Structure formats: structure tokens, C-alpha cells
């Protein structure tokens, strides 16, 4: 690889990224690249068998991530990544789907799929890049835009109450819930590792800077200033009630909020199928055993 006349050494994580797809499309100062970096480092540290991991994404800036990971991966329609992942996990319990998508994709257009996948406690990890707006389409307001924030569709300041994603995930039934920001790289990576290894529905929210869209309309256009802001307003409060884990321009509570055990959906599915087949076998009626 030649970079501006210099020969570059191979990136240590190159094995985890898809050849021919890097460099990525994300803007300078965007947190999505940090998420990709920490995600592949998490896989590396876990020594995860990447042939058994399926990365699924929706539409939006971070939606492109499924093209960058050197795994089986699928870039679905807007909001439908989780429903797709549920189909994969239901028929192939040996695979681990990881959905990586944005706040608008997962919680506006895809909100229904999120609460139901969490309710079922199906073994899928969801990583949400929350940048407070729709970056790909030019910075419109979304379900996480803070009150009073300016976007291209809230010219007079946002009047809608935003979701507290960690609280929503916990209330919907997730067994692991954490929130970090794109400057908490090591803790983010640790949470990715925990979430991937957790049996059940796990959720990691990463609050990211978006200098080009959200940032430029809310005095955070400078990437460094954006990172400084995240450092100033973030407070670690692990295992407090997620309802109190606020996300506001002046205060972002980060940490791990939920880590519980609950029977997982694909295990229940398999168990139920085996019971049905066992009773058929008893009656001598078992004809076809797949799966």
C-alpha cells in the first residue's frame, strides 16, 4: 500500500476489515470510525471466530460499517437490520448476529423491531452510534435530538423530547446495556466484548461526535472541541437506574447499566422444537429432522 509516496505498513487490524472497502466514507472527526476500530479490536482481543459472526446494518452513515468488517455481512433497508438479524439467529443458533446502526435507523424507523427483539431476548448484539441527528441526509432532527438543539429541520430549536436509549433498551428486556461516548475507547471496547459474549439481547450505545452536521449547527463543528465537550459533560455512573442515566448537552451519564441473566430465545426455540420432536418420536411419527 502506497500512501503519498511513503510505503505504509500493514494495519494490525487489517485481517478484520474487508479488502478494497477501506478508506471508509465517514467525515473527519466522526465517531463512527472509532466504533469500527474498537469493534474490530474487540473481536481481535476475544479471538472471535469471524466466520461465525454476521454484521448487519441499516441505512445511514454508520450503516456502511457492514461493508467494512471482514465477516459475513448484510446491509439491509432502513430500520430493518434487527428484523433481518432475528431471522438469521432463529435458523442458525450457531451464528452471532451483530447489528451496528444509527439512532434514527434503530429507534425511529426501526423502533418497533428494537423493542420486540429485546422483548424476545434473542442473542443479538446491537451497537448504536448515536450522533443526535440524521447525518447522511444532511443533519435533520431525530428521536435522540436534544431539546433546543438546531438541525436542518428544527431551525427554531428542537421541541421534541428525546429517547433515553439505555432506559428504553433496559425496559424492553435487554440483558446487557451500556453507554459510552466515542472518546471512551477502552471502555467501549470492553463493553463490545461483554456484549458479544453475552447470551441474549445486548445493547451498547455510543454517543458520537458529528462535526459536519449536528456539530456545525450546535457550536461543535471543530472535531477537537466536540471531543472536549464529550469529556467535559460525561459522568460515569455504572449500574444506576437507567431512567436516571440522562443524555443532555450539559450532562451525559455513561457506564454499564444492566448485566443480568435471562433465558435466551433461540435456546428456548430449540428446546421447544426438541420437545415436540421427542413426543412425535415416542408415537413413532417423527419423519423429518432438520436443524
Amino acid at each position: 500500500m502506497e500512501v503519498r509516496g511513503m510505503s505504509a505498513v500493514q494495519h494490525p487490524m487489517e485481517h478484520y476489515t474487508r479488502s478494497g472497502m477501506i478508506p471508509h466514507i465517514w467525515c473527519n472527526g466522526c465517531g463512527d470510525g472509532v466504533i469500527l476500530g474498537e469493534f474490530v479490536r474487540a473481536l481481535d482481543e476475544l479471538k472471535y471466530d469471524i466466520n461465525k459472526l454476521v454484521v448487519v446494518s441499516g441505512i445511514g452513515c454508520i450503516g456502511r460499517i457492514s461493508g467494512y468488517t471482514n465477516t459475513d455481512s448484510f446491509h439491509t433497508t432502513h430500520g430493518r437490520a434487527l428484523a433481518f438479524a432475528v431471522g438469521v439467529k432463529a435458523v442458525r443458533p450457531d451464528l452471532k448476529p451483530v447489528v451496528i446502526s444509527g439512532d434514527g435507523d434503530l429507534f425511529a424507523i426501526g423502533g418497533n423491531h428494537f423493542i420486540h427483539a429485546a422483548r424476545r431476548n434473542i442473542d443479538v448484539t446491537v451497537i448504536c452510534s448515536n450522533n443526535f441527528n440524521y447525518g447522511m441526509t444532511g443533519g435533520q432532527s431525530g428521536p435522540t435530538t436534544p431539546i433546543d438543539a438546531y438541525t436542518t429541520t428544527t431551525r427554531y430549536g428542537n421541541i421534541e423530547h428525546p429517547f433515553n436509549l439505555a432506559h428504553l433498551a433496559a425496559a424492553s428486556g435487554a440483558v446487557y446495556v451500556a453507554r459510552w461516548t466515542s472518546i471512551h475507547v477502552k471502555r467501549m471496547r470492553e463493553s463490545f466484548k461483554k456484549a458479544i459474549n453475552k447470551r441474549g439481547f445486548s445493547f451498547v450505545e455510543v454517543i458520537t461526535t458529528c462535526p459536519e452536521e449536528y456539530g456545525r449547527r450546535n457550536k461543535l463543528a471543530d472535531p477537537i472541541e466536540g471531543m472536549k465537550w464529550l469529556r467535559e459533560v460525561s459522568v460515569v455512573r455504572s449500574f444506576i437506574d437507567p431512567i436516571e442515566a440522562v443524555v443532555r448537552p450539559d450532562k451525559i451519564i455513561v457506564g454499564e447499566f444492566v448485566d443480568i441473566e435471562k433465558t435466551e430465545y433461540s435456546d428456548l426455540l430449540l428446546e421447544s422444537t426438541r420437545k415436540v420432536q421427542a413426543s412425535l418420536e415416542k408415537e413413532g411419527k417423527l419423519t423429518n429432522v432438520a436443524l
Partner: protein
Amino acid sequence: MACAEGALAAGCRFFAGYPITPATEIAEHMSRRLPEVGGVYLQMEDEIASMAAVIGASYAGVKSMTATSGPGFSLMQENIGLAAMTETPCVVVDVMRAGPSTGQPTKTSQQDVMQAKWGSHGDYEIIALSPSSVQEMFDLTVEAFNLSETYRCPVFLMTDEIVGHLMERLAIPKPEEIRLIDRKRPTSPPSEYLPFRPGEDLVPEMAIFGEGYRFYATGLTHDETGHPQTDSSEEHARLVQRLCDKIRKNANKITKVERIFLDDADICIIAYGSVARSALSAAVEGREKGIKIGLLRLATLWPFPDQIVEEVAAQVDKILVPEMNYGQMVREVERCAGRRKVESLPRLGDALHTPQEILAHVLG
């Protein structure tokens, strides 16, 4: 039930759906039968999710289907486009009820036949079949899976509420008598595999998740490697043309029709689904009265059997198209009929055309 058993016989092991009248019986039967054969039934939160889960399961290597009616079929259109774009083998059953909107949920219709062809945005081709009997419901469901695996596209079973709720004799063939087709699998190792490189038949070999191929599929315009090509007009044209041509160029192989009394017919009725049964009675009755009526029954709606309709049109004086809608497939017939006179016999509102009605129309 014939549909569900046909699906199981075809090797379907995944069903994702959402309850809707008048298609719920298929879901109920699948929820009971799939676990018995080691398959999975999933009741999703809506039809959008159902279609997404079906695509996911198909890419995970399992023959998959869903069943719905008009309102659900509308919600599925988004991911039907994704299935067409990512060349996902899958089967969707639409038990057509009276629309638009909620319409008359328990009443029959054939109002979704154009939606089957044009429902999702952009240019693409799908295959749609329409059974006229319980036996054909079984047979065409098997055929639907075979076609979807052969051409890697969504295949629709467009049935009306009448055929959907019909009770009649069904002979289920022995498993060894049923011809099953599975998707083409990769013939090259992962390092050389190109997920969207077509073969001579324009259909690419399909890897599935978890086999080490580590491929990428996207709803964005993509090249043979699967990588997005959002700026190249050549790549876009090449992909969309291939998605359409793999069906269009095989239309003669795909389309199935039944020709009844057509050899010497002066008048041809073209019908599908339950209406074809009334049309057959009308033809028999007409023949008894000395009128040379023939019937062209369409088991395949899409791709439309252009060539067959052209041939029939050249041979008869008049074509009559009775449908349980306000005139949909008649437009296709008109397109293929040249200067031959084509009459639409639309029917709206909870009833099949009676043979007498059709005959009265023939007699003018």
C-alpha cells in the same frame, strides 16, 4: 393447509409472519407443523419485519416463506425490493382480499396482481403464480420454491380468498416423487468467490452465512464483488438489466398455462385463480350450445406469458378477461392481443363471476 404442506414438501423450514385475514390459516398450520420437522415458526411484530426475517433466514441457508393479505403485502414491498436486489430466494403468499386499504377483510378479490409486479420501487422482475384448485395450491407452492431457488428472486403465490378457503381433494405425492431444486452453491473457494458474478444463466452462485465466505450483500447498487457502486451508471445499468433479464429471458421456461378447448375456438376467455373455474364452466356450457369458446388459464401471472397470448389472439375473434378486480391483467392481454378485440369483465364485491354471467357476456 395445501399451501403449508406444499411448502414443507418443498423443503421450507422457516416461516415468519403476522396474523391477517384471510391468510392466517397458513401461519397457524406452519406454527404447528414446522417444529415437527425441525423448522422454525416466528411470529414477528409486523409484516415489514416478517419479510426482513425471511431474507435473513434465506441468507442463513434455509428455505423461507411468509404469507399475508393485501395490507400486509403492502408493508412487505420495501423488503421485497431488497430481496430482488440481493437476489434472495424466498416465497411470499398473498391471499387476496378486497381493498384498497382495510377494505373487506373476509371478502375475496384479485386486486393485488399488479401490485405483485410493480409494488416495490425501481425496475426489477419477480415471478408470480396463481393456483385455481387445492391440488394446484400444493403443486404451485412447491414450484414457487423451486423457481425462487433457480432464479434467486422472490416468488409470489397470488391466490384469492376463494381458492384460499376451498376444500377439495388433495393428493400429496411421496417425497421421492417431488422434484426439488436448491440454489447454486459456490464452486470456488472463499478467496476467489465473487458473490454477484452471474453464471451463463445470469444467476450468481449463492454462499450462505457461516461457511467462511465472509461476503457482503447490500441493497445499494453493487458490482460483482458485492461492493457498493453508487456513482457508476454503467454498473447500475448492468445490475438492473441482469436482475430483469434473468427472468425475462427465461419467461418461456417459467410460464405455465392451461389451454382448454382452444384448438378451434372463436372466443377465448383468459382467466386465473378461482375465476378460471367459473370460466371453465362457462366454456363447457357454451360448447353445449354450439359456441366455440376456449379457455386460456394462467397459472403464471408474472412474467406475463406474452408469446402465448399473442398466439391465441391471432387465432380467435375475441378475448374476454373476467377478473375479480376493476380490470388489471386485461391490460397485459390488450398489450399482447394486437388488434384483436379484448373485453374486460371486471367484478368487484364479494363474489365470483358465475358461469352464466360470463356466458351471457360472451353471447353479448
